[in-house]
Every structure is written in C-alpha cells, then in structure tokens.
C-alpha cells in the first residue's frame, strides 16, 4: 500500500513538473504573439528560448534525487568502514548468508524447471494428459479404439492428440547404422502443443493415412549432427528400419517430448480405424489434449466421463474394468508427478536453512548493535534523525546480504556441479538445471529478503540517551529476542533433523531390503533386435539360438541366462482372472495383473532366486513339446493356497493350452524397489520357437570385471549382427536408477540439517558467551560469596537448556507436521517413527549441550578478584 502510494505520488509530481514547464511555454508563446509573431513562429520561438523541456524535467528530478543518492553513498561508505573495522564479524556473517543463499540457489536451480518454469509449449497451462489409469502402468494410457471414439465425440478440447509409447529405430545414413529414439505421433501432435517445425513442414493429415509414403520430422540436434543444419536435408531420403523415409521437417530446437525426454525422430502414427476393434483395443497410446478456453481440468474430466465409461465397456476386459479409471491431469503434473513432493520438500528444507541462517546473522547484528549503542546514541544526540539511523542500519544489512548473496551464488553454482557428479539424472529435467539469470534473480530476491529479515530488528533498536552517561556498557534489553532467535534455530534444526533421520532410515530400508535375488556380481547386456532384419519367427529363433550359443561360451562368464526382462522390473502383465487351474473352479475376478518372463534354464541359478518347491527348469525340457511353468511364491499361494501346486496343470490365458507346474520360486522385486513384488510366473524359452519380443537381456553371474565382459559380449554380438546395439550394465547400476533419487533427497536434507545444526550451535554459543561477558561481574560476586564453579557452570547449562527445550518443543510439533507431509517419500517407515524422532532430538540436545560447554566452562573459571575490579 505504502509503496503504491509512494509510486502514485511520484507519478503526479513528475506530471506536475511537465505541466509547469508547459504553462511556461504557453505563456511565452502568448507573449511572443502579442509581440507580433505568427502563431507557428511564436510557438517555435518559445521552444527555442526555453531549450529542451525534457532536459529541464530531468534537471528538476536530479534536484530531488541527488541528496538521496548522496546520503546513500554516505551510508554505504560508513557501513563498509564499519565492516572493515570488525573483519571477523563480517566474515562470519557473510559466510552464514552464503551458506543459506548457496544451498537455496543450488536447490532452486534444480527444482525450478520442475515446479515453476514454463513448459516449452505456448499456453502450457491448457495442456493435459488423459487416459485410462490402472495397475498396468504408472501413467495414464489409452488404446487406439477408445481414443478414436473419444476424438470423434469429445467437447472439452480444442484438439486431442496421441503418440505411441517409446520406441527405438535404426537409422542408416551413410555407412554405420545408428540406434535412435523415435516416436510415432499423430499428424496434429506438434500443432496441439502449439509448436511449428524449425525448418521444413509439419506432418499433414495425408502423411498420417495408412499406406502413405513414409516421412519423418528430425530433431534439431540430429539435423545438425547428420546434416550440418543444411536446409537441403528437407526432402532427402534416409533409411529407417530398412525402409526409405523422406525427411520433411526439423523439430524446434528446444523441443521436448510431453512425457519428458528427448527424441531424435518423429514418424506418423497412422492409426487405422478400419482395423478390427479387437486389434485396435490392444494397441497402446499416450494421449494429450489442449483444453478449450474457460474449461477447467475438472470440467473436462466430467465431460469425458461418459465417453470413458462407454469405451471402457467395449475395450477393456471385464475383469480389469473395476481397476481402471479416467485420469485427466495437467501436463506438468504428468511430468513431475513422482518428484513433486520431493521437490517441495527440498525447497522447504533449504528455505528452512536460509531462515536459520537469517536468525544467526540477526543474532550477530544484535550483539554488534549492543556494542554500538553508545555510538548510535551519540549520533542521535548530534542530530541524526531516527529515519536516518534506521536507514543506516538497514543499509548495512543489505550490504551484508548482497555480499553473502554473491558468495552464495558462487557456492550454489559449485554445489550444482557437485550434484552433477553424483548422478546423471537424479531428477527429471536435471539436465536443464543451471544458474541462469532467473536463478540469479531468485538469489538476489532471497538475499534482499534475508537482509531485511535479519536487519529489521537491530534497525528498530531505539538509541537511548542514557547509554551516553552510563559507565561501561549499559544493559541491553534485547536478550529476550536473542534467546527467541536461538530457540527458533533449534526448532528449525530439529525439524530438518527429523526429516533427515526419517529419510535416511527409509533409504537404509530401501537399500537393505531383500530383493529376492542377489544383485552382486551380476552383469547384464540388453539387446534389441532391429525388427526388420528379423521379419520371420524362424529368423528370430535362429538369431536367439546363435546368440545364446555364443554368449554361453564366453570364458569365465559364470552362470548365464537369457530373459526378456529383468528385475526389479517385469514385463507387461496379464489378467489373473484369465488363468485357470485344471480341475478347479474359475479363479476370482479382480485379481489384477500377473507378470511373466520368458527365461532360459540358467535363470534362477544366475539370479540366485531360490526354488522353494519342486525344481527349476531342465535343459532337456527345451526341446520337448511341454510348456513347463515355474510360479512365484506369491502367485502359487494365491492360486493354490495350501495345496501343493507341483504337477498341477495351469491354462495361462484360457486358450486350452495346459502347462505343468514344475516348481515354485521365491518372490523377487519386479515392480521397482518401493513396491512389493507382483505375482509372477516364468516360462521356459524353447529351442525351436522364439516367443521373445524384440528385447533380450543376457544375464551373467561372473567374477569378470565389467569392461572385460563388455568387450567379449560386444565381439560376440558383432559377429552375429554388426548392426546390433548392445547396452551393458551391472545390476547395481540398474538398481541405482531406482535408488539415486531417494539417496539424493535424503543426503541433501541431511546436509541441510547438519548445516542448520552448525548454525544453531554457533548461535547458542554466541548468545551464551555474550551473556556471560555481560554478567562477569555478577558471577564474580556470586563466586566471592561462595558459589562453586560447578554451580555457575550448571546455571549456564540450565539457561541454555531452557531455550533449547523451547526450541525442541516447537520443533517436535513441526517435525510431526513435516513427517505427515513427506509420508509419500518414506519406504517402510511410519511418519511417527519413534526411533527417527528420538535420534533427531538426541542429536539436537547433544549438540546444544556441546555448544554450551565452552561458555559454561569459561563462566565457572571467572576470577572473582579480576571480575570485581572490572569497571
């Protein structure tokens, strides 16, 4: 309000100056006319005589601004002189602010692209992701037949578009083939997101028709890499998956797939409404829409609901219907859903730390103000106005804040680089995190806000004349506030500590939980078959047999197996209720999905998954016509209860093909690390048929180091198919993908808690030392009349304990709230976990006691003789 008023007054004042000058010009003009000049000449002459009205207005403004600038300069000079006089104070204050601002800057740079920065699409707030949501996938999806219905009948969207799930393709341009990431998208995909190609043209409806000539949009990066950004690339024909494809356009430079991630290539999706519904309903899509103006997400969902119900009944098997629901959510939510909570937690934690840093600096400034009371009173006495003194103090705070802010930006930049060394992709969009102008503006704002926060109390300290006459330093009255600041620091630290200890405990549980298999010494190689090289099942079978043969022969490879997928993930599941047991009534509906893998004989041995009943697959079964089955323990229990499943026959998809159950394997993680394993069964890969999909994982339990094994694997694969892309990684690396982010969050919060604890102990130490210095005389008297050193030390510890206790009480309340809020990030740890909270409190109290140790020791060693002479 005040600022607005001030601005308004300023505006009217400037207008007044212009009016005044204008009045002058008009009077001069009349005068000139009266002297006989023509109207035009009179006006020009008036202007000529006056000179530039703009410059005059400028000169008037300078009249008002100059004194203000002068006094600012004076304040600055004075502040700098003051800081140079007490370098230790200045250094500690600047460092403290730098800690707060540095950590805030680093964290902000990481979460800004997630939470606040606009998505790279025009009017990004109108974009949504929508589709079925069910246990099959962690994100909403769609099927072609439903989507075609929705698209025809929907009302809430300007446009609805779709893409197929991630795919890879082989790009042949010149000699060597490359594996690229490519997506099949609908013709209006870019248009829906409000984008146009950087060069060339977008897809047209004609491109998207089944059977149309193949065309592609390439990414800006690929355009630069493969064509040197040559506009002549448009119209060029390249070979993708062994087919000639014409390049028609280039994606925008900053293009990003809506589900996050890069792509090299977009191809038309070519949905075919003429295919039978049964085929289209098993073909998966991701669907996105742009809302009409004025339509909210809730309204859109309500309007889509009847369409959803309708297509649900037509496209989703009855037994899965009850588990599917319609999801419409903003594109940002779709992108950051999994890290939203973690992002807010990090932001909250780092702001807490910043607050603790502010409290510390405020405390330092109050101590300094107490020492400068006489000086301030003197300045007031010789005529410095109250406003002037407040401004002086605030200038000092701002100067400190800015110095700390600059150091903090540098620290933040360094911290961000350190994050980068920790892991490549800790958070989504992590690659975009950098200290840019936007982040610097945040840091500046944070520094100024911090400066005002820690400067305001010392600034409002009223200089008192009696300090001028009092001998020595008079008693400052602000100790209450200083104690309060210490309590606040303790509270913040405790909250951060509680958060850190909950997260660490949860991380420990996550990392030490049984996986169901032994991840040590496991190395995996993932191969993806170029589809069009192996069009027939026979060609694929031959390939798989040969690759198995060759990989098995690698010297020292240890136990070896092939699978189509590998824990902690599973392949796509099938409905439980589709399964039948021979001689049993049908299984219960709503059983969710059952995962399955195709494996070779050595799988259980290589993974070290224990067989708990029956036996593992045998090599001789691979040529037989049987389809032996191994169930996971949870699936066996679910299907058979207490009955022995070994030797029973199971029909997996109600097609009359009965498979004998030969064994039961222990459960192993197949849904990521944080979720209990889903029921799962294993099928044996036969020698003569190739049911494997395009993905193939070779698993080695080996004592060879990774690099050696990788060389061997690559050589063998190359000799089968030189164009075959191979990715080798150890199981630990695979698991890290699931552990990096919880680790990052837990360790970062722990770092903040530790820093906050450090600041709190400095604060406590500072206030105690200050009080003891002030009461040296009183302590001396007490000792002179018989107090023992232990009594004095105890008294000091007791007062420290009081403020700490207040802080702990507030902090505990805050910790409970925080624990509730971060419940979603905890793995097998209750938000009220007494152990975590107890650890936090014990650490806090121990550190506080430690911080009070030196001051209390010093107090108990006051020499009464010296203390009493001090005057």
């Amino acid at each position, binding site marked *: 309000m005040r600022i607005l008023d001030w601005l308004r007054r300023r505006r009217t004042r400037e207008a*007044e*100056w212009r*009016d*005044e*000058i204008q*009045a*002058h010009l*008009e*009077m*001069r003009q*009349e*005068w000139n006319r009266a002297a006989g000049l023509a109207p035009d000449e009179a006006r020009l002459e008036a202007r000529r*005589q*006056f*000179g*530039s009205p703009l*410059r*005059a207005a400028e*000169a*008037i403004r*300078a*009249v*008002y601004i100059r*004194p203000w600038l002068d006094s600012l300069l004076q304040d600055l000079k004075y502040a700098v002189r003051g800081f140079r006089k007490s370098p230790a104070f200045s250094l500690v204050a600047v460092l403290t602010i730098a800690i707060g601002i540095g950590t805030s800057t680093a964290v902000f740079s990481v979460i800004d692209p997630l939470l606040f920065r606009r998505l790279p699409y025009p009017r990004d707030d109108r974009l949504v992701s929508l589709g079925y949501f069910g246990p099959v996938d962690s994100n909403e999806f769609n099927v072609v037949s439903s989507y075609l219905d929705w698209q025809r009948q929907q009302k809430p969207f300007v446009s609805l578009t779709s893409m197929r799930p991630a795919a890879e393709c082989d790009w042949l341009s010149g000699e060597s083939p490359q594996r690229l990431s490519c997506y099949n998208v609908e013709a209006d995909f870019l248009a829906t997101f409000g984008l146009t190609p950087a060069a060339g043209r977008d897809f047209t409806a004609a491109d998207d028709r089944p059977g149309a000539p193949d065309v592609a949009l390439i990414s800006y990066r690929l355009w630069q890499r493969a064509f040197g950004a040559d506009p002549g690339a448009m119209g060029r024909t390249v070979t993708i998956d062994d087919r000639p494809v014409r390049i028609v356009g280039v994606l925008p430079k900053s293009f990003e797939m809506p589900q996050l991630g890069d792509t090299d290539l977009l191809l038309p999706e070519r949905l075919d409404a003429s295919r039978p519904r049964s085929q289209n309903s098993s073909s998966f899509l991701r669907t996105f829409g742009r809302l009409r103006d004025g339509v909210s997400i809730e309204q859109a969902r309500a309007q889509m609901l009847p369409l959803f119900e309708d297509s649900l009944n037509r496209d989703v098997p009855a037994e899965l219907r009850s588990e599917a629901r319609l999801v419409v959510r903003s594109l940002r939510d779709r992108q950051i859903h999994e890290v939203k909570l973690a992002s807010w937690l990090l932001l909250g934690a780092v702001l807490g730390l910043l607050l603790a840093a502010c409290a510390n600096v405020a405390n330092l400034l109050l101590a300094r103000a107490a020492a400068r009371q006489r000086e301030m009173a003197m300045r007031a006495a010789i005529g410095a106005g109250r406003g002037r003194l407040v401004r002086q103090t605030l200038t000092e705070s701002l100067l400190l804040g800015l110095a700390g802010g600059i150091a903090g930006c540098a620290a933040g930049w360094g911290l961000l680089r350190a994050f980068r060394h920790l892991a490549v992709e800790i958070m989504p969009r992590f690659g975009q995190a950098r200290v840019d102008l936007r982040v610097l503006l945040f840091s500046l704002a944070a520094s100024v806000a911090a400066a005002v926060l820690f400067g305001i109390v010392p600034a409002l300290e009223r200089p008192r004349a009696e300090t001028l006459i009092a001998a020595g330093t008079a008693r400052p009255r602000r100790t209450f506030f200083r104690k309060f600041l210490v309590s606040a620091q303790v509270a913040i630290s405790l909250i951060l500590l509680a958060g850190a200890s909950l997260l660490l405990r949860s991380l420990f549980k996550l990392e030490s939980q049984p996986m169901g298999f032994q991840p040590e010494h496991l190395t995996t190689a993932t191969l993806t078959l170029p589809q069009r090289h192996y069009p027939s099942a026979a060609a694929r079978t031959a390939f798989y047999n040969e690759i198995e043969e060759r990989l098995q022969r690698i010297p020292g490879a240890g136990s070896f197996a092939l699978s189509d997928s590998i824990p902690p993930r599973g392949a796509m599941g099938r409905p439980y209720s589709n399964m039948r047991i021979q001689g049993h009534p049908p299984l219960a509906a709503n059983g969710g999905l059952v995962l399955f893998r195709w494996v070779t004989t050595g799988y259980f041995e290589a993974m070290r998954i224990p067989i708990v009943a029956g036996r593992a697959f045998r090599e001789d079964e691979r040529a037989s016509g049987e389809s032996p089955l191994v169930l996971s323990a949870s699936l066996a229990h679910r299907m058979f209860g207490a009955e022995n499943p070994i030797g029973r026959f199971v029909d997996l998809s109600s097609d009359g093909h009965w498979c004998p159950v030969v064994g039961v394997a222990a459960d192993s993680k197949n849904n990521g690390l944080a979720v209990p394993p889903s029921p799962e069964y294993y099928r044996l890969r036969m020698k003569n048929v190739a049911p494997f999909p395009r993905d193939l994982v070779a698993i080695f339990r080996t004592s060879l180091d990774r690099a050696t094994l990788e060389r061997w694997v690559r050589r063998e694969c190359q000799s089968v198919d030189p164009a075959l892309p191979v990715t080798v990684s150890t199981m630990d690396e695979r698991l890290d993908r699931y552990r990096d982010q919880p680790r990052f969050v837990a360790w970062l919060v722990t770092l903040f808690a530790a820093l906050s604890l450090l600041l709190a102990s400095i604060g406590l130490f500072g206030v105690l030392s200050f009080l003891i210095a002030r009461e040296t005389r009183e302590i001396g008297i007490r000792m002179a009349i018989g107090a023992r050193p232990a009594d004095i030390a105890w008294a000091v510890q007791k007062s420290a304990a009081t403020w700490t206790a207040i802080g702990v009480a507030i902090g505990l309340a805050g910790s409970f709230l925080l624990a509730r809020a971060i419940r979603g990030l905890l793995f097998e740890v209750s938000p009220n976990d007494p152990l975590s909270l107890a650890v936090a409190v014990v650490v806090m109290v121990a550190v506080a006691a430690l911080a009070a140790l030196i001051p209390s020791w010093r107090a108990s060693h006051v020499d009464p003789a010296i203390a009493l002479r001090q005057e």
Partner: protein
Amino acid sequence: MKRSDGLQGTLDLLILKTLERGPQHGFGITLHVQDASEGLLRVEEGSLYPALHRLEREKLIQGEWRTTPNGRKARFYALTAAGKRRLAEAESNWGALSRGVQKVLRFA
C-alpha cells in the same frame, strides 16, 4: 551555504529578490529580471525551474498552483520566512562582493 556564491548564487539571488515583491510564477520571474535589468540580464529559462525546485526543497520558497489574471493555471512561488532571511544575507554578501570587485577593478 556554498551555493550562495558563484553564478548559481546569482540566479538564486535574482529569484529571491524578484519574489520579495510578491508571489510570482517562473515566466513572470523571467520577465521581471529582464525588465528590471533593462535587458542586461536574461534568465536561462531551462535552468530556472531546477533552481526554483531546489530553493523550494531548501524551504526558502513555497510553490502553489494558482490561476493567473489571464485565467491560466501556473505554479506561483512565494518567499518563506527562511527565504527572507537568506535574501537579506545574500544581498549583503553580494553588496560586499561587488564593492570588493569594484575596488579591485579601479585599483588596477
């Protein structure tokens, strides 16, 4: 104050002296100085206004919007008590200065 000597001080003195006759607007001050000096002195109009505002800031004069006899709105400035004191001071300084300068000139 430092500003009461030198050229700037001269302009201040002319303004204050003109306003001693009663409130006047900027243009009126320009005319008066020109008339009273029989055309020997001309106030530079562009720098008159910054000077007026500076004097107002120093509380030597007080500005106010009023209507001129011709029915035009203009900002009139009037001397304050402090302005009157400053004028007296500046007049005597100026007298001393000009007498001094005269003597030096004659002596040479």
